[in-house]
């Protein structure tokens, strides 16, 4: 098998293979909790999926998912971010691309791969070399001024999640105003409020993923 070259296999990220969805956002905003909440919903919908995590200094997120009992541990890959959580999803996404390719090779029927970014700041964005569509997660406890700061992550993502909405009254956040400001700065792009601890908003997120990259409405 090692004697011939395919000479016309010029590849771009053009829809071949599993759809790839990025999940970014600040540390503690709820990225791993989102994946934990999505797993049973995606499974119930019969979607064949896997997860790639990007931990900054440990394999904590990957291990948390592997030990959760929610998903076959073989379907969770960990990519170290080399101290650069934004580099590994934006300037140099090749480690994640290779991890996704490897999952596709191991699970030929794969429809969807979720890439969880390491915790980063509001300037974090995903390269479209890596993903087809991406989510940014913020939370009310991070402050209701986040939408007004208009970070590229929040502005450019395909779906903005405002998580931990149950905490709003406890941290002095006017949730309605925060959501209104988020919608104002994002124009027509979607904003979904969630409380991932009790499942509020998870179905809406799964619907958005299904419609955007799996073309299931």
């Amino acid at each position, binding site marked *: 098998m090692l004697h011939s070259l395919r000479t016309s296999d010029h590849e771009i990220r053009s829809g071949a293979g599993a759809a790839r969805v990025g999940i970014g956002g600040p540390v503690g905003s709820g990225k791993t909790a989102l994946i934990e909440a999505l797993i049973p919903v995606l499974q119930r919908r019969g979607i064949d999926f896997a997860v790639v995590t990007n931990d*900054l*200094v440990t394999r904590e997120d990957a291990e948390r998912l592997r030990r959760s009992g929610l998903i076959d541990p073989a379907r969770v890959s960990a990519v170290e971010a080399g101290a650069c959580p934004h580099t590994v999803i934006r300037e*140099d996404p090749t480690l994640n691309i290779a991890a996704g390719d490897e999952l596709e090779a191991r699970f030929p029927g794969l429809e969807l791969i979720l890439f969880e970014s390491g915790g980063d700041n509001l300037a974090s964005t995903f390269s479209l070399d890596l993903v087809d569509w991406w989510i940014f997660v913020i939370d009310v406890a991070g402050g209701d001024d986040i939408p007004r700061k208009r970070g590229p992550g929040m502005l450019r993502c395909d779906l903005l999640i405002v998580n931990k909405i149950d905490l709003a009254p406890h941290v002095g956040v006017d949730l309605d105003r925060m959501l209104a400001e988020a919608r104002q700065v994002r124009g027509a792009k979607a904003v979904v409020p969630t409380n991932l601890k009790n499942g509020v908003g998870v179905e809406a997120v799964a619907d958005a993923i299904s419609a955007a990259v799996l073309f299931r409405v």
Partner: protein
Amino acid sequence: MLSTLRAIWQTDGAFPNGSFAFSYGIEGAIALRRDMSLRDFEALIEAMLKQRWAGYDRVAMLLSYRAHGDLAAIAMVDREVEASTLIEALRTGSRRNGASYLAAHARLGEPLAVALRDAVKAGDCCGHIAVMQGAVWSALGLGEPLSQLCSGYVAASGVITAAVRLGIVGALQGQGVLQRCLPLIEQLTAQDTADEVELMSFIPFLDIAAARHARADLRLFAN
């Protein structure tokens, strides 16, 4: 001139190839010597170039380069690297770095990179970074001298960049170290390399550091 430009392109830190996530033992070495001075660090880089890169990575890259796209010959070099890299963290790191490197070149449309990536997927190749670099640089027409310089430069700059991010040298101090490495890299590439040469490496401190690092709970780099 085009081959020189391609060499610059391949050594540019902005070229995405996954290398930023690997320290090749430096993070582990720093954990063992937290008070490492700039002089100690520079001596470590020099040892790495003389005792690992010159006799091992450079040679593996050259042998792969000389295969000129023959996948079976490239796979043979690849298997030799796999068999002779005893530290698991360095072995798996080299394979992962190679997979990222191939992913980049495959996306950019290099047919040999596509074929090598498929060979790795099929288990016919391991995909070690030095071997994949040699194969692709041959396809890009860099020539042996420039390929060796590229290999030495990215080996030194990668480790120095990791050290800067780990905070043991400043950004400009790191560039000073790299600047002083350049004559050494040139000197080490001047020696003739026979086709039947054995791969040789002897850097026990970095090997042990890399092995210890693999068991660390907290780490920034993959190795």
